[in-house]
C-alpha cells in the first residue's frame, strides 16, 4: 500500500515537472470555494477534482487502476483533471469581481503573468522545429528516402536503419520495407534482432553489421558510421556507400537489389 502512495506522489511530481501549475490549481480551487460557490459548474468541477485526486492517491483504487492501465502510465489518470477550466474559471471569477474595466484589465494581466511564470512556453521548451518537407518528418530522413527511391527504381527493398531513422522512414514512405522498426519492433527472427542491437550499439562493428545484414538480405543499411574502419568493413562485407545525408551514410548491397 505504501509503495502505491509513494508511486502516486512520484508520478504527481513528474506530471507537473518544473512548473507551479499545481499551485495555481489549488489557488483556483480556493477562489472557486470563496467566490464561485453559487455557480453550479464551478462547484461541480471543484468536487469532481477533489474526488478524482482522492481516487488517484488512494492506495486501493490506485492499485486497481494501475492493474488496468499499467504502473508506468499511471500518470495518464491525471489527464482526467480539468486543470485548464478550473484555473481559467477560478481566475476569471477573481477578475470579474471587479466592475472597473481598467482594474479588470490589470488583474487579467497580473494573473496571465502568474501563469507565464508558473509554466514554460512551448518554443522555449524546444518543442518545435522548422522542416522543409510537408510530411513534417526530419529533413535528413526525407532526403534519405528520396535517394533510396531514386536508386531502387520501384523495386522492392529491405532496409535496416538506426533507431532515429527507423522511426520515420515508413512515416515518410510506406513503400519502403524495413527489417525492423522503432525499438526493433517487427523483427522476424533472432538474426534481425541482433542486427538491430548491433546497429544501435554504442560503437557498431562494420563486419558484424554487414554479416548480419547479408543474412537478413538487407538491400540498404542507413546509419551514422562510428569511424573509418566501419566504412571499410562494410565495403568488404558487400555494402558500398550509395550516398551520404548530413552524418548519415546509405549503404547498398547490389546482390539484393
Amino acid at each position, binding site marked *: 500500500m505504501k509503495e502505491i502512495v509513494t508511486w502516486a506522489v512520484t508520478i504527481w511530481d513528474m506530471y507537473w515537472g518544473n512548473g507551479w501549475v499545481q499551485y495555481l490549481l489549488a489557488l483556483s480551487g480556493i477562489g472557486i470555494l470563496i467566490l464561485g460557490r453559487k455557480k453550479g459548474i464551478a462547484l461541480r468541477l471543484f468536487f469532481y477534482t477533489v474526488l478524482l485526486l482522492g481516487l488517484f492517491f488512494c492506495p486501493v483504487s490506485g492499485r486497481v487502476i494501475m492493474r488496468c492501465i499499467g504502473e508506468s502510465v499511471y500518470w495518464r489518470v491525471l*489527464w482526467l483533471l480539468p486543470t485548464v477550466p478550473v484555473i481559467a474559471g477560478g481566475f476569471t471569477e477573481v477578475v470579474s469581481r471587479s466592475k472597473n474595466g481598467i482594474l479588470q484589465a490589470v488583474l487579467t494581466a497580473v494573473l496571465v503573468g502568474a501563469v507565464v511564470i508558473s509554466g514554460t512556453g512551448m518554443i522555449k521548451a524546444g518543442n*518545435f522545429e522548422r522542416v522543409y518537407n510537408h510530411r513534417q*518528418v526530419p529533413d535528413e530522413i526525407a532526403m534519405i528516402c528520396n535517394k533510396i527511391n531514386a536508386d531502387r527504381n520501384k523495386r522492392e527493398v529491405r532496409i535496416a536503419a538506426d533507431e532515429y531513422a527507423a522511426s520515420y522512414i*515508413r512515416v515518410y514512405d510506406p513503400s519502403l520495407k524495413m527489417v525492423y522498426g522503432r525499438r526493433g519492433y517487427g523483427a522476424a527472427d533472432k538474426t534481425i534482432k541482433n542486427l538491430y542491437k548491433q546497429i544501435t550499439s554504442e560503437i557498431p562493428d562494420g563486419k558484424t553489421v554487414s554479416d548480419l545484414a547479408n543474412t537478413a538480405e538487407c538491400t540498404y543499411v542507413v546509419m551514422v558510421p562510428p569511424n573509418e574502419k566501419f566504412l571499410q568493413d562494410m565495403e568488404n562485407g558487400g555494402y558500398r556507400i550509395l550516398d551520404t545525408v548530413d552524418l548519415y551514410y546509405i549503404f547498398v548491397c547490389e546482390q539484393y537489389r
Partner: protein
Amino acid sequence: MNMVIKCLLAALWLLAVPWAAGGTVFYKSKKKSMGMYLLAGYLLMFSVAELMILPMMWAKLSLHILEYSFAGVMAVAAVAGFIFMCREKRMSGNGEKKHMETSVYFWIAAVLIIFQLAVASFLAHMDADDAFYVATATTSVHTDTIFSINPYTGYAYAHLPSRYVLSPFPVFLAVVSSLCGFHPAIVAHMIFPAVFIFMAYVVLYQYAKKWFPEQKNARGIFMIFCAVLIWFSGYSIYNSENFQMIRIWQGKACLASVFLPLLLYLGCCIILEKQREYTWLLLLMADISCCLLSSMGIILACIMLVVLMVMGLVRFRSLEKAACTALCCLPSLILGAIYIVIR
C-alpha cells in the same frame, strides 16, 4: 489533385460534414449552438468510425470499402442534419436573430488561439510514436488494408497488436487522408492540429458559456487564461496541454485535450443537472469516441463516468441517472472484455 481542391475536401470532411451531421443529434433539442453542432458531429463521426472499423477489420475488408461506406454514412447524416437545421430555422420563424456576444478579450483570445494553430500546423514536432500511429495510416493507404500490415516493417502481421486494434484512430486518419487526397503524414502533422486544437478551444468555450452565461467579458478573459495556460504547458512532457500542442494527431493526445474535457462537460450537463441539458445519446457517443481514440480512453472514460455517477448519486439519489450512466459505460466495458479475451 490540385492542392486547393484537397484543402477544400479537408475542410468539407473535417468541418462541414461533422458540423452538419451534428444537426441530426440536436434535432428538436432546445439547447444547441454552432460549437455544439460541431462537437456533436464529431461524436457521431467517431462513433460511426469505431462501429464500422472494428467489424471491417475483423472481416479483413480493404480500406477503400471502409472509406466509401464511411463517406456514405457521414454524407447521409450531414444531409439529414442540414435539412433538420433548415426545417427548425423555418419553424422558429423570422424571430430574433441570435448574435454571438463578444468583447475585446474574446478577440485577444482569438488571436492567441490562431497563433497556436499556426505554430502547431506549420512547425514540426518530431515524435517517435509516429512510427506506429502515423505509419499505420500511411501503410493502410498504401496497401489498401485495415490493420493487417505491420507499420514498423511493411510485412503482414503475425499477430494483431491487441493493445491497439480496439482503438483504431490511425485507420480514421487513413480514411480521412484518402477522402482528401493528402498523404496521411500531411493530414496528421498539418491538418489535424489545426482542426483538433480549434476543437479543444470550442470545448473550453462551452465551459465558459456555462460558467459565465451573462458576462461576455468574463468569457473572453476565461478564453485568454485557457490559451495562455495551454501555451505555457511546456513544464513537463506528461500533461495533457503539452500533448495538445505538440502531438494532437495521435489519438491519446486528442483524447486528453479534446474528448475527455468534452466528456466531462457533457457529464456535468447530463448527470449532474437535475434537468439534463443534452441527451444521453451524446454521452454514449462520447464514450465510444474515447474508445476509438486510444486504448487508454477505454479505461479513462469509464473512470470519469464512474466518478460523475457517484457525484450524481450523492446529489440526486436517482437510480435512473445511475443506470443511464452505467449504460453509457457499456462500450468501454465491452471493449475491455474483448481486450482481455484477445490479448
